[in-house]
């Protein structure tokens, strides 16, 4: 009866898988042909991907955008295999069609002349596209991972960034420790006028605190379990500092650090 492709929705599309590449033991990068989405999407927005047949897995999977090329009509998604849905995505072959809702949510505010970007783990993904959007401003980036294999990102950022700083929890690459092992000294140089961060909540909370200490405006991009991604289910709701509730999907996922409780 119903057929996805014939739907006239403004934000539901069928994308074609162009390329799939394994980045480390559980992270994959896919290139999709999706000209409508590539033309619209802003850094920090996300997509909801159908992963399989109608009933199981049932819910879509929210995935951030690691890059988009309006000219080519392509998107890049970098995702970690964590369960059945992402396992399904990793098994797709070139030419496969993927049912996508998007772009969803609000992206980063592009401001400042000397931005610093701090990414942790899979939270690094949406920041690559952010760097593209900030060009030609000189952007520095601080990438934090548990160990070296998580930081395949370095060469991707190196093409676009002024400086790439690296920390790993186990010291297998860059400075040993988490993002806070380097951030205070970077901020102390006093040259940054905007900070963007995405990663685990405790990291973002610490990064935001450090930014506030130096008077640098800071945006955080939140990740929460979400069922719908379009503001209906309230699974991803988080507390705002003014006492109200915010939906990570439609009020975020990007917020000013002082807006939300991490």
């Amino acid at each position, binding site marked *: *009866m*119903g057929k996805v492709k014939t*739907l*006239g*929705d*403004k*934000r*539901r599309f069928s994308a074609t898988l162009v390329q799939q590449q394994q980045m480390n033991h559980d992270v994959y990068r896919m290139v999709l042909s999706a000209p409508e989405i590539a033309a619209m999407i802003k850094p920090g927005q996300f997509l909801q991907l*159908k992963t399989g047949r*109608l*009933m*199981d*897995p*049932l*819910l*879509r999977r929210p995935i951030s955008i690691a890059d988009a090329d309006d000219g080519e009509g392509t998107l890049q998604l970098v995702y970690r295999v964590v369960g059945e849905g992402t396992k399904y995505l990793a098994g797709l072959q070139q030419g496969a069609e993927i049912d996508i*809702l998007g772009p969803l949510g609000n992206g980063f505010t592009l401001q400042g002349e000397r931005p610093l970007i701090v990414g942790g783990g899979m939270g690094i993904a949406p920041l690559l596209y952010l760097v593209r959007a900030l060009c030609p401003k000189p952007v520095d980036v601080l990438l934090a991972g548990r160990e070296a294999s998580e930081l395949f990102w370095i060469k991707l950022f190196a093409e676009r960034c002024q400086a790439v700083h690296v920390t790993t929890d186990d010291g297998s690459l860059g400075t040993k420790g988490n993002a806070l092992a380097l951030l205070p000294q970077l901020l102390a140089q006093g040259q940054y006028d905007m900070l963007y961060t995405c990663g685990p909540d405790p990291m973002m909370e610490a990064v935001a605190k450090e930014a506030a200490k130096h008077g640098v405006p800071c945006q955080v991009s939140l990740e929460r*379990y*979400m*069922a*719908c991604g*379009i*503001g*209906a*289910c*309230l*699974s*991803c*709701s988080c*507390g705002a500092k003014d006492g109200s*509730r915010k939906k990570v999907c*439609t009020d975020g996922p990007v917020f000013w650090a002082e807006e939300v409780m991490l």
Partner: protein
Amino acid sequence: MSKVDSRLAVNLAGLQLNSPVMTASGTFGFGLEFRDFLDLNRVGAVMVKGTTLAPRAGNSGQRAVETPAGMLNCIGLENPGVDKFLNETLPQLREYDTQVIVNIAGATEDEYARLAEKLTVPGVAALELNISCPNVKQGGIAFGTCPESASGVVRAVRNATDKLVITKLSPNVTDIVAMAKATVEAGSDILSLINTLIGMKIDIDRRRPVLGNVIGGLSGPAIRPVAVRMVYQVAQAVDVPIIGMGGIMTTEDALEFILAGASAVAIGTGNFVEPELAERMADELSAYLDKTGTASITELIGAALPERQTREGGGCTC
């Protein structure tokens, strides 16, 4: 892209719908969230998010998790409160040609009655009594699992409003027919069934329940056979119209509920996956009527019930 098909019109105790496909409370926000995905004018009715007297923040911790062919949630009735709904949301919803049904939840009979009074305004077509929410400590399912307390809530609302009263039944009971009879006797004009089934999931790595509230409500296709069975049983026991819901993902699913005795259906979890589903399903029901040579969807209501089959077998045309 498509127009209203008069063959899909149904009338539930005076609630006139241009399509028998509605959207279930808690799965469609206030409707406005879906404007980018479908034409709200083609949704039979929007059953808005459970509304309480004061705003509620809902539960903390993880609020949803996927399960086989379904999901568990423990949102905990997060909502902006009835006043904000009346002042900000209802005026926007009234611009659409869809019926607005407000799902209400209270901790006491008096709270239900006060909500009903406040919502007795133009633009609200009916009130749906949420006496089956598994995720709040006071009220909610406590009302919905005992015939006497459920009847008390229905009577309190019945006395407070002349709007149509819909009671949404919990499946978490031993005898759904007893609950249905009691709430109809107390004054329900229409019954909705079913709400979610209580369930839980455990994270074996953390050795802890996944949900912040420990237990949650199970929805999605996994619960559909339970819902169809309950509609089928209740339809034979009461004379009020039934809105069938529980895991409807396809037009075939909706037809099962209608044949089991539902006069209308509501899409719930399906809205999360296919936000345009309510509109598309109306088109597909029209196509089904064409294909089967059926003059009106009302011909199908309860067609699978044993009573009806006997009547038809006996050649009775009434």
